[in-house]
């Protein structure tokens, strides 16, 4: 077993609300690890602490053996950990291809070039287009991101995450708001990524989670109450009581 990400004793409090309560979690290299839990369980806050947008009150986050707890977000991204956003956060004024090209450019190392037109750097454009093809958006490449439908935005979010060529991707509800057909496409696509990328998946769609996950952790009121293989979680009494029972 090869641990990629290790979280120990992570705590975060907003005013009187405990969003993350002593979370311990290990993500193994290459696995698809899902985190489920009722609304307000602190799933997004957890991801935000891992990506560096929110500072934890205490606890440590270790990625590839180095302590990243106090590193800023951009430094974590450079180490190879990226996230997608639940509320689509693309750069709407830019074209679809530009959005992906920005992600490619981030690890290309020439972002302080001031005069050469960015859209004429062929290897950036080609790479970006490949990621668009992967998610099936290549024919929308030149449209402004604002012109895409909600489902397409989710696809583009994924393309951007892929293009950052991070070793580990944290996906915050990639299926949110998708219709049944779009969801099925997304599930199939995530299946093709399994094994290539380490994925931490937050998702409400239980069918998707049980179809995709290697392991599942259940987060309730900021605490992880169980971690295990899908079948272990499905038949865990605590989980059924605390979470699945509500559905």
């Amino acid at each position, binding site marked *: 077993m090869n641990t990629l990400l290790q979280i120990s004793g992570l705590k975060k409090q907003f005013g009187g609300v405990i969003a993350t309560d002593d979370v311990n979690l290990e993500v193994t290299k290459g696995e698809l690890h899902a985190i489920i839990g009722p609304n307000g369980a602190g799933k997004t806050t957890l991801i935000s602490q891992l*990506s*560096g*947008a929110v500072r934890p009150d205490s606890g440590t986050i270790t990625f590839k053996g180095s302590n990243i707890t106090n590193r*800023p*977000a*951009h*430094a974590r*991204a*450079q180490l190879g950990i*990226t*996230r997608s*956003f639940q509320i689509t*956060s*693309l*750069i*709407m*004024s*830019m074209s679809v291809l*530009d959005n992906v*090209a*920005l*992600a490619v*450019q*981030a*690890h290309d190392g*020439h*972002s*302080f*070039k*001031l*005069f*050469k*037109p*960015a*859209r004429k*750097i062929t290897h*950036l454009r080609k790479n970006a287009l490949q990621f668009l093809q992967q998610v099936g958006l290549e024919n929308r490449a030149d449209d*402004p991101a604002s*012109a895409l439908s909600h489902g397409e935005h989710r696809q583009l979010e994924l393309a*951007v995450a892929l293009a*950052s060529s991070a070793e580990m991707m944290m996906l915050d509800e990639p299926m949110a708001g998708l219709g049944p057909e779009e969801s099925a496409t997304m599930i199939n696509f995530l299946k093709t990524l399994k094994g290539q990328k380490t994925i931490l998946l937050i998702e409400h769609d239980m069918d998707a989670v049980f179809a995709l996950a290697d392991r599942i952790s259940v987060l309730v009121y900021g605490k992880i109450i169980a971690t295990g293989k899908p079948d272990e979680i499905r038949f865990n009494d605590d989980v059924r009581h605390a979470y699945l029972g509500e559905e």
Partner: protein
Amino acid sequence: MNTIGKITIAGMLILAIVPPVLLLSGQAFYMDLATRLVILGIGAVSLNLILGFGGMVSFGHAAFIGLGAYAVGIPAYHATYGEFEMVASYNGLLHIALAVGFSALFALITGAISLRTKGVYFIMITMAFGQMAYYFFLSLDIYGGDDGLTIDVRSELPLINLDSPMQLYGLSYVSLAVAMYLVHRMVNSRFGMVLQGTKGNVERMATLGYNTYYYQLLAYVISGAMCGYAGFLLGNFTTFISPDMMHWTRSGELMFMVILGGASTALGPILGSSLFILLEEILSSFTIYWHLPFGLLLILVVLFIRGGIMGLFKNMGGSSK
């Protein structure tokens, strides 16, 4: 070429031809107006780089114009009246170097602090730093303080005689064209892509691995330096400089020019500065209370005209949805 491109070329052609023709036909007044418009246009273009493309709402840009103007006035003052032999000079190239250098330095220091803040803090802190520069020059009695400083001798440049209105206009016009070209190249470069990305979504850019702070700071310094150069021209044009050039209301006017014309477009700032100066001229010839209709117009523009004049053109041209 698209509609916007054609309008940009047409606008620049008008500025190249009309003012010189008017001057040659004896209408020196219009030449004065055009020179002021073009110089402030450079200031607006440089502000547009960070405000329009970078999403940084700087409310202290007039300070850079003032710094640039004092970079002409102070050396010229000492060249005429003695003291501080080190800086005393009429050499225009030295003045440009001082104007650009000090503006860039001021931008670097104030930007490094301001860019640690976000949103409304950034607006207010840039405004406060601008006022700091204003009060600094206001309290410098040696250079006239409140009363300002008259420039007795204009900057001496090789080949160009700034005492000639035509040549001063020519230099200002070419400078404007160069500034527009530079900004155009920069916003479309890889650096510009990152800059525009930070305007769209800073958190997203950080998640991709960009340390957005340094990109914003570089843009801020470039913008400040360009504005300082505009100040060099303005000092030579008015031959009188005072702290009033740096007052926060001047910064507000510069912002209004950018928004009125259309932020994040190439020609927008020029259209804005043109309309601004023409309106100022026309309204103030009718009444001393011209600020009243001017203020009302500003409120109406903010409430009803999205994207400024260039936005209106875009809608007419139907080039985008």
